[in-house]
Every structure is written in C-alpha cells, then in structure tokens.
C-alpha cells in the first residue's frame, strides 16, 4: 500500500503501477481536481494544509477498513498540499480488484471516507475573499 502527502505534483503512473497485479482485472483511479467554481463562487486557487504524519496513518486505517469490506487487491493514495491552481490534481486514489464492480465501489467508498477523516484542509481563494472549507459543519466565525 502507498499513502503519501506531498507538496510535489502527483504521479498517476506510479499510483497505478503500485496497485497493478496479475490477479486484478480492474483498476479504478480517482482524480480530485481543483474546480473553477464552488458554492456559486469563482475559485482563483486553493491552498491545502495538512497534518502529514497523521494523514498517512488515517489513510492506512481507512484503506484497511475498505479492504475488509470489499474484495479488493491493493490500494494507493496520494494527496497534494500547498497552493494548487484550477485544473491541478489534488488527490489520487487507486484500487485494484479481480472485477470492476468491486474496484469502482471500493474506490468510491475510499474517497468518501478520506474526505471525512483525513486531516487535510483546503482554503478556497475566490473572487473577493478566502475561506477555509470545513464541510457542512456549522462553525463560529464563518
């Protein structure tokens, strides 16, 4: 398993080769990409902060949980930190499995869980301001 938090450009080729196995006929690879709009605002760029030592541990735990729930072969996760421009890749999640159904479902579940649990935060710099995005939780000062 490969779990990385890095300021460098992500490497889809390396992520896929990490999960490619002779007994796995299907690989699902997810790209999270910086989108030019969010909640009706025009996004200029994002800044990702992270707690890297904990983030990789949480990635490992979630991957273990998903591996137990689905019949999958291997997983790999890379998350980028720092300033990212619109169109750049912030997240890569790869899952290999014998069959496509499990690969798709496990990859989707893995991404959902990562977004809820991994201590990585994004600040949206939009036209006219900036804000740390803290999910749907209500927060003072927002």
């Amino acid at each position: 398993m490969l779990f990385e938090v890095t300021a460098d450009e992500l490497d889809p080729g390396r992520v896929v080769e990490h999960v490619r196995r002779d007994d796995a006929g299907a690989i699902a690879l997810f790209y999270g990409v910086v989108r030019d709009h969010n909640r009706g605002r025009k996004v200029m760029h994002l800044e990702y902060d992270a707690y890297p030592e904990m983030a990789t541990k949480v990635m490992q735990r979630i991957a273990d949980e998903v591996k137990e729930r689905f019949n999958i072969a291997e997983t790999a996760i890379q998350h980028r930190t720092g300033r990212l421009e619109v169109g750049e890749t912030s997240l890569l999640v790869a899952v290999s499995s014998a069959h496509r159904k499990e690969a798709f479902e496990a990859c989707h579940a893995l991404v959902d869980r990562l977004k809820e649990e991994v201590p990585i935060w994004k600040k949206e710099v939009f036209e006219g301001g900036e804000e740390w995005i803290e999910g749907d939780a209500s927060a003072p000062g927002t």
Partner: protein
Amino acid sequence: MSTANVRLFARLADLAGTREAEVELGEGLTASGVFDILVQRYPSLTGFETIVRFAVNSEYVPASHPVRPGDEVALIPPVSGGSRAL
C-alpha cells in the same frame, strides 16, 4: 516541568497566528483542558471547542482523553468532506 506540544492547522493556525505551542501539564489535564489553556493564550480561538476534534500522537481521541508528558496534541478543525467537496 512536564509539557506537551500542541499543533494547530488551517483556520485555527491562522486565528492563533502560530502552528505550534507548548503547554504545561497540570494534574489530570485532558485534551479539552489543553484547548482551554490555548483559548486563554489565543482568545481568537474562543468558541471553536464545539467543532474541533482532538488527536493525541496522531490518533483521534475523545475530548476527555488524558494528556501525558511528551504527547503531541493536535487540534483538528473539520475537514472539507461532505458531498460538496471536490
């Protein structure tokens, strides 16, 4: 005097103006007790105890978790998750 190291991230780091702090450990201090000490030091953190999660040595813990000398306490604001993210 025994201490613990505290790490702050994202909005909490911006509000406090620092990403790290050292806290002296009184008797029976818990994770939320550490947060209370930080609020006194950095009043702009006031009100965030309702949304922050705590980690000790890189594992999520309840607010009542005891803090030992040498522990690394992290204040974890909500992550971006949820259906609107990405």
